[in-house]
């Protein structure tokens, strides 16, 4: 009887110590980071893949043992594509959840609204929106970073290509949203540097159903090429109108064109359309030894297997932001200032989905026009132009 009791005690101790070991492994505080995405509302086409990416990465990282044994916890808040909501959610993340870093928001407007808040809270923000003012002037953006390429870089990629083709007179047509406004500004700003004249400057609304009038004007203005700057159905309608009018000049699209959906929707009209696209959408066309190839392949295939849709450029922005933070947490530890310094100085020749990042104290984005490939639509598929 006594022996049994002794055995019983031994078993108890063993079980207890195993239990304690287990608890110990999981007792490490989770690293909390916040994410603000426009999951609903006007910009939901951005927020949706970003949210999906965040959920997928959190699972993958924790499955591989977390970050230095700490599980990663991404707290996702929906900004409803609204600046006010973004500010409220950011305050909640900072004050209630005590997050180390905030990823997002999805749009330039929301990101700008958060700049003063993040500077006051001395917490890094890695925006998933493209606008240049998010990280410039860099002196006033001490805590702010972003992963999408600059609009200016996309414009430079187009203009460089045009120069080589001997095009110097272009007609531009832009959508009357934040994306189109930024594109229009960038197109005007870079034109003199590349010796390009904008001979016609047209606009259209996000829900317009016919752009024939604007394209007719561009054609009459003697432009050698059309540049359309938009996201959403507008770019497909412009493409269809461009083909119907038989304009006889090439059509260039912005980096918003990078979705197979657009080729499907525009059908034959998409043939010959040229656009500067990040390598994410043409990952299967880039050489195997390219430093981005492996991660693009893994990300795209994982995402497609899980969500049955393509991640698109936008999901990639969230991927880059989260992976940068994960690396910073791993190397620099859970300290806001250390994370910020790591992001600024150690993200060098860092391959992401958006390009190869080179952050520096003078540039909190770290991408230039080399992040883009010029891509043409050929037989319903992308083809990289040399």
């Amino acid at each position, binding site marked *: 009887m006594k022996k049994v009791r002794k055995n019983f005690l031994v078993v108890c101790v063993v079980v207890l110590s195993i239990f304690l070991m287990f608890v110990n492994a999981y007792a490490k505080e989770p690293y909390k980071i916040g994410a603000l995405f426009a999951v609903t509302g006007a910009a*939901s*086409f951005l927020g*949706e893949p970003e949210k999906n990416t965040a959920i997928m990465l959190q699972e993958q990282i924790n499955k591989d043992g977390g970050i230095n044994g700490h599980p990663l916890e991404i707290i996702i808040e929906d900004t409803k594509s609204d600046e006010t909501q973004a500010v409220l959610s950011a305050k909640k993340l900072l004050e209630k959840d005590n997050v180390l870093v905030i990823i997002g928001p999805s749009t330039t407007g929301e990101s700008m609204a958060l700049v003063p808040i993040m500077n006051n809270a001395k917490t890094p923000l890695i925006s998933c929106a493209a606008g240049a003012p998010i990280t410039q002037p860099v002196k006033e953006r001490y805590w702010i970073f972003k992963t999408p390429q600059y609009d200016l870089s996309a414009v430079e990629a187009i203009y460089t290509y045009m120069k080589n083709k001997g095009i110097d007179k272009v007609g531009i*047509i832009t959508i*009357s949203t934040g994306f189109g406004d930024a594109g229009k500004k960038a197109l005007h700003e870079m034109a003199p540097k590349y010796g390009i004249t904008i001979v016609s400057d*047209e*606009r*259209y*609304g996000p*829900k*317009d*159903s*016919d752009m*024939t*009038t*604007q394209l*007719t*004007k561009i054609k*009459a203005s003697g432009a050698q090429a059309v540049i359309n700057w938009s996201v*959403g*159905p507008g770019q*497909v*309608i412009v493409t269809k109108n461009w083909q*119907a*009018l*038989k304009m006889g000049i090439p059509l260039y699209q912005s980096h918003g064109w990078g979705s197979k*959906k657009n080729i499907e*929707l525009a*059908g034959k009209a998409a043939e010959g359309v040229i656009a500067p696209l990040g390598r994410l959408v043409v990952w299967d066309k880039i050489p195997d030894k390219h430093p981005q190839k492996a991660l693009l392949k893994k990300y795209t295939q994982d995402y497609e297997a899980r969500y049955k849709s393509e991640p698109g450029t936008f999901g990639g922005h969230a991927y880059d932001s989260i992976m940068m933070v994960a690396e910073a947490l791993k190397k620099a530890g859970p300290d806001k200032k250390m994370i910020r310094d790591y992001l600024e100085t150690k993200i060098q020749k860092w391959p992401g989905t958006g390009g190869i990042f080179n952050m520096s104290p003078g540039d909190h984005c770290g991408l230039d026009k080399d992040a883009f490939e010029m891509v043409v639509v050929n037989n319903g598929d992308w083809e990289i132009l040399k």
Partner: protein
Amino acid sequence: MLTVFLQFLFSGLTVGSVYALVGIGFNIIYNATSIINLAQGEFVVIGGLLMWFFTESLKLPFLLSAVLTILSAGLIGLLMERLTIKPLKNADLLLMIMITIAVSIVLRGILMFNFGKDPYVYPPFTEGEPLSIYGAIIQQQTLWVIGITGLCIILLFLFFNKTIVGKAMLACAVNPTAAKLVGINVSRMVMLSFILSAVVGAIGGMAITPISLMEYDKGPMLAVKGFCAAIMGGLGSNRGAVIGGFIIGILESMTAGYIHSGLKDAVALVILLLILFFKPAGIFVSKTMLQLRKF
């Protein structure tokens, strides 16, 4: 010069025919109930998206898909009336109009859940090169849209003026109590008007999707423009809605062409305001008619 002008004109006609069809949808319900149904834009979206669903997703033949789309849209119109308007038959008109806004939001949510946020498109009714008139291009689908608009107007004219049911519907709008006294089933007429208006909206959606693409949140824009068309022509007058739609479409296109594309919506709306200042009832409705209106 002529080519460019014609091109602007055709572009205006394309856009205008869409506005006109939505405008007619407003009129049908207005004529039977004095309600302005702000979910009219959603009917158009439903038409386009369901047509895509039947032809592209289920791969049904064109005519069958068209019939199924029209039937489903009619059913949605019926459900909308029975579930939201009928239960408060004697409520204030303004309240009913607010309910139609609520319905439009709900419909948009349902569409978003079922179709997602992407735009959809299917091939035009007839394949082939766009027609060229003096060098200006007009897409074949545009001719379809204009033709269908015309057909709708003729059929609706015959319906409202030559058939007993149509006249009964008009009677309900003018005076429901009197209509009831002469033996008209007012409730059924109101239901019929919602079905009819959903069908007209859906037909419009089916016709314009190959040109303009269709996504779940296109409704409000269509409703606003279609409403402007109906107001400009005179609420209740189908001829007015069509002409109003074409005027707005062509004005937008001409402004974009000859002034600047950034100003096109503004100019069209300013002209609408001017017309309403000088002819508050719209182009085709007389002052006396205006006094008979409840809303």
